[in-house]
């Protein structure tokens, strides 16, 4: 492998890994804040125990999101220096604002929340966790702004071989940002919601503090039901935008080689990229036209025609992304999304029937679903990022032109191996810790009584190291 391919693999590995923890952080921070708000408003100690219980799990997840995030920021300069020079004028702004506006707030108030249980007033303490949740989601908005610009560059002009900012407002209101940001953040809410729901179901299944975990399950159900529906609708808007702004990606998502009018939606196909065909297809007539343009008869362009257009515009080259990955990534994401909607609405139905805490098979099923959002999230990003190839900035800069020219292959081998090794170790540690802290549930004797905390010494810090 040469430097370009190595650098791409390293970016892929570190990004997908980082993105296991980020969506969970986005959703879980909000849920912990909501549960603590219930405690603040009702004074019911069960919410306090739930806050601490899920708070401990949140900290484990948050830590890994943070440490893997630092790598992301520095990697642009390390492996993609030519890219950094080309986009710095624009791409650097959201990154810098993210750090200034969100990371400082997140880390400072997390410290206040963790160590401030007995030092801050209840109101300020509650405010701290809300600020952590808000900051986490703010940072997602800024990073998605940077990414959206790579998908659909706006507000720039090319000066001296690099993209210079010409209109900041255009970047803030990038149409791509307005469809991609809600979809990604709300997918994070689904991830957090299913995490809390799944663990609550696990505890109810084992008969651990059933009445307490029923409460967290109910909060998570409402949260997830709303969020999973919104993920679908925002995903639909994003797909419609993709038809307009990145037709090549849409054609790859569909494995559509020849232009069709009206266009049919592919349910299943074996993609043969070399011979530019799709075999053994199962297609739903008219459906792609509906998906793409909200009417049954519109034309959707195929990969072959788009390739010819690209060659005409940018010169010779292969502008077709890895179709197989994009095609299946899209199907995995959408299929799992449907499953999440079904799971949460079925839970609401059980709650309505008064059987939420007693339906053991549902509990088991939810514990299984708990692991799936990570696959859906990764699949979604693979579609977004692989579907843009061979461009790193769509239509402006090829990925192969963005790589650092002076970094040796051996250096990237070393760093890729080191990250893979350390990240693998961290994954094992995180999984072990989450299970260790989730499994015991909430200790007996803490459920109904209000003053179990009286035993804790006055100045003991619940979360201190």
């Amino acid at each position: 492998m040469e430097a370009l391919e190595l650098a791409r693999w390293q970016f892929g590995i570190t990004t997908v890994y980082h993105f296991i923890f980020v969506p969970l952080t986005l959703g879980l921070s909000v849920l912990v804040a909501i549960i603590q708000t219930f405690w603040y408003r009702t004074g019911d100690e069960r919410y306090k125990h739930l806050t601490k219980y899920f708070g401990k799990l949140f900290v484990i997840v948050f830590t890994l999101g943070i440490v893997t995030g630092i790598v992301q920021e520095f990697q642009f300069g390390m492996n993609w220096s030519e890219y950094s020079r080309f986009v710095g004028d624009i791409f650097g702004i959201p990154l810098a604002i993210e750090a200034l506006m969100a990371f400082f707030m997140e880390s400072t108030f997390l410290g206040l929340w963790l160590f401030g249980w007995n030092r801050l007033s209840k109101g300020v303490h509650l405010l701290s966790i809300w600020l952590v949740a808000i900051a986490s989601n703010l940072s997602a908005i800024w990073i998605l702004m940077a990414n959206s610009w790579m998908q659909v560059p706006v507000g720039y002009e090319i000066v001296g071989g690099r993209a210079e900012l010409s209109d900041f407002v255009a970047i803030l209101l990038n149409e791509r940002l307005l469809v991609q940001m809600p979809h990604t953040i709300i997918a994070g809410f689904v991830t957090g919601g299913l995490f809390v729901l799944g663990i609550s179901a696990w505890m109810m299944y084992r008969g651990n503090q059933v009445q307490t975990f029923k409460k967290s399950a109910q909060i998570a159900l409402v949260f997830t039901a709303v969020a999973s529906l919104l993920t679908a609708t925002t995903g639909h808007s994003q797909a419609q935008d993709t038809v307009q702004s990145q037709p090549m990606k849409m054609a790859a998502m569909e494995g559509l080689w020849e232009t069709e009018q009206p266009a049919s939606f592919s349910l299943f196909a074996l993609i043969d990229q070399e011979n530019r065909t799709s075999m053994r297809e199962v297609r739903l007539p008219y459906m792609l036209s509906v998906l793409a343009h909200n009417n049954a008869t519109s034309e959707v362009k195929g990969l072959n025609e788009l390739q010819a257009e690209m060659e005409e515009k940018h010169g010779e080259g292969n502008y077709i992304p890895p179709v197989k990955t994009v095609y299946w990534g899209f199907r995995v994401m959408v299929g799992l999304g449907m499953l999440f909607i079904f799971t949460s609405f079925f839970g609401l139905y059980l709650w309505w029937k008064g059987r939420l805490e007693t339906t053991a098979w549902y509990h088991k099923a939810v514990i299984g679903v708990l692991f799936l959002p990570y696959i859906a999230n990764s699949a979604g990003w693979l579609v977004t990022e692989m579907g843009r190839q061979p461009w790193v900035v769509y239509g402006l800069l090829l990925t192969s032109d963005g790589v650092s020219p002076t970094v040796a292959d051996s250096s990237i081998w070393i760093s890729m191996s080191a990250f893979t090794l350390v990240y693998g170790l961290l994954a094992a540690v995180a999984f072990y810790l989450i299970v260790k802290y989730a499994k015991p549930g909430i200790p007996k004797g803490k459920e109904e009584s209000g003053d179990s905390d009286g035993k804790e010494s006055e100045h003991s810090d619940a979360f201190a190291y």
Partner: protein
Amino acid sequence: MDFQLIWFILIAVLFIGYFFLEGFDFGVGILMPFISRDDTDRRVCINTIGPFWDANEVWLITAGGAMFAAFPHWYATLFSGFYLPLLLILLALILRAVGFEFRSKVNKIFWKRSADHFIFWGSLIPAFIWGVALTNIVMGLPIGEDMNFTGGLFGLLSPYAILGGVASTTVFTLHGALFITLRTEGPLMERAAKVARIMWIPAGILLMIFALLGYRYTVLFDGLGLVPGTIPALTIISFIAGYFLLKKERFSWSFAATGATIVMGTIVAFEGLFPVLMPSTLNPDWSLTIYNASSSELTLTIMSVVAIIFLPLVLGYQIYSYYVFRKRVTRDSIPTH
């Protein structure tokens, strides 16, 4: 005043803040194994920086983001040029954070020993490499016409650069020792003070050698001649003052003195380089300066507005957090498992 100058100063401020703040938490991490008699002592040490270290690290992340936005060429050249040293820093920071956060989550000897190693090496390695990196920059680097670093890893490990790394490690360790004296009490506090007292004189000699050789090996004094300016002089005076303040057990003043040494020392580097960001040893015309490496006027303007709004806010709540956790960490305050 042009925007390039403003951003040069702001990024310098971010690095100064970073070295000052993370300086003491690196120091605490380096000293923890040596001044602790048992597990509770170690946990007291970690908890002295518990609520702060994460936010301290954000100063670096913000500096990185600001370099990317304001001087993209600086960001690109520095980070691709120092590829392997930066990799080491990143790995160290990852393992260190994991060590802090997860150490007390499992009550097993092997687990805690591993976390202790992560914390120690995770603090020592970045403290050392930052010194090496900064020394290399003020020595000048083989930067080509296309702004890319053309040297190799071993070129970065000259004896003088290593001396710079040892110097930064020493100052951070002293700074951390004094921070422990401010945040703990009893025997642990006394041991931290003792370490600082023992280390001070050899550290001072080391720094003196480093500073004197700076005339020969760095570009910093090119414009100055033999007599150093006010700030280099203050760097030395604050370090000496710290020793006498420590002897009188004026710990907070002594901490302020090592802090001043770090702040002034970093200013010397930035001031001495100005308006250069990374000097090229191959051809002075190929050096990266705040003008040829910067973003457009529009980008710098927007960034300035953002910084004016958010920097005071950030400072405000960070100071608030130090105020909330002003009480000393005692052995009794450490929760049992």
